[in-house]
């Protein structure tokens, strides 16, 4: 179980932060940019090769796996981009791009004097990054089979074992909802999630839930909750 995925509906929380800035510290912009460049230069994309030495895969799934595999108690201890910084640094070290000692030494140096940033690099690298941002990475595929459910069907959300990654929110597991709409075609996910069930292209649905079924006696009225869910996460609802 991934504690980090069981946020929906939690009680006893703080008032909402009204912080509308995207970055609250200057360094956060840098780690966001590094992540986006990694996504754009990732090896599985069908974009022109560049001189970048980045030759491995990096997608949202990798970033998310990092967040899901981190100590769940730390997840609630660190700010959003602090988690990115940890996950991305760890990736570059794990993949051998950078040695841990090298990163630590440079960090130490930058702590005691203003960062001296190197200059240079091929413009084609930045061109590819720009291209990726403008065209994206379309997960839509042709369907190999008709969708299992139709609008109006009652479904029960599955509760598969999650290993390194899942896209199933904890608050929906084992709950009953109604198919609100069936999205056209099929959607691949960025990686295979094993027994969790994602990977190959499959139909996706918008599923409607009565909040009273999700949080009995503990929610609001005149309110409907919709969630987009991959087909692997749905089962026909049978009387139990």
């Amino acid at each position, binding site marked *: 179980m991934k504690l980090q995925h069981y946020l929906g509906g939690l009680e006893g929380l703080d008032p909402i932060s009204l912080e509308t800035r995207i970055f609250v510290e200057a360094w956060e912009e840098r780690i966001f*940019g590094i992540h986006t460049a990694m996504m754009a230069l990732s090896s599985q994309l069908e974009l022109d090769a560049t001189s970048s030495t980045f030759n491995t895969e990096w997608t949202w799934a990798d970033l998310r796996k990092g967040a899901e595999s981190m100590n769940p108690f730390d997840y609630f201890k660190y700010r959003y981009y602090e988690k990115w910084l940890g996950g991305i640094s760890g990736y570059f070290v794990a993949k051998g791009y950078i040695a841990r000692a090298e990163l630590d030494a440079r960090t130490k140096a930058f702590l005691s004097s203003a960062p001296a940033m190197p200059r240079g690099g091929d413009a084609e690298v*930045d061109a590819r990054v720009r291209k990726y941002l403008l065209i994206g990475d379309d997960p839509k595929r042709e369907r190999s089979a008709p969708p299992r459910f139709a609008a109006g069907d009652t479904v029960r959300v599955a509760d598969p074992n999650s290993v390194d990654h899942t896209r199933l929110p904890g608050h929906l597991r084992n709950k009953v909802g109604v198919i609100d709409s069936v999205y056209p075609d099929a959607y691949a996910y960025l990686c295979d999630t094993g027994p969790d069930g994602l990977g190959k292209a499959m139909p996706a649905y918008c599923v409607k839930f009565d909040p009273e079924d999700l949080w009995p006696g503990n929610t609001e009225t005149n309110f409907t909750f919709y969630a987009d869910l991959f087909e692997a996460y749905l089962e026909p609802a049978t009387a139990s």
Partner: protein
Amino acid sequence: MERFEYSRDREAVNAARARALEALLIEKGVITSETVDKIMAIFATEMGPFNGAKLVAKAWVDPAFKTLLAQDTMAAVEQMNFATKGAGAEGEHMKAAINTPEVHNLIICTLCSCYPWPILGLPPYWYKDPSFRARAAREPRKVLGEFGLNIDPTKEIKTWDSSAQIRWFVVPERPEGTEHLGEEQLAALVTPESMMGVAIVKPPSA
């Protein structure tokens, strides 16, 4: 007991580490010294809430466009001639939730921070905050109240949680007293918060 302690120079270490990482990546040829700045420039001028605002304003003045936006969001977005032609990164499949006098829409991502980059840019901190993600799912009226938005109890709230490949945004209602305004002036009224459903659009006098 270190689990319960914080480093006292945490922000300074974060900042130094982020810059150290970037410096090493430049030196090792992974990215260039311009990469991060160029990405931020794209979000400053080509992918951002200024696009969403244009889309909303057009929907306000053009009922046929509004209908298309509701029924085939991507076809409508393509007409806008954005730099991304609509479907840029994190906007490959977007869906509009249209506010009406009867329904107020709210978008959330309880798992992370899914967000339609081409038309809304990058999400603000509150959207990524675990407290918002958790609370908006169960008690949206109370949450909206904290944003200063009190939704009439007779109006339905619909919350859209994006955990698959669709990225949602809200088309707010056109405020009263804006009949004389053109599309560009209308777009200037549309805030990112109104396209996420935690605010409504106010007339220029307000």
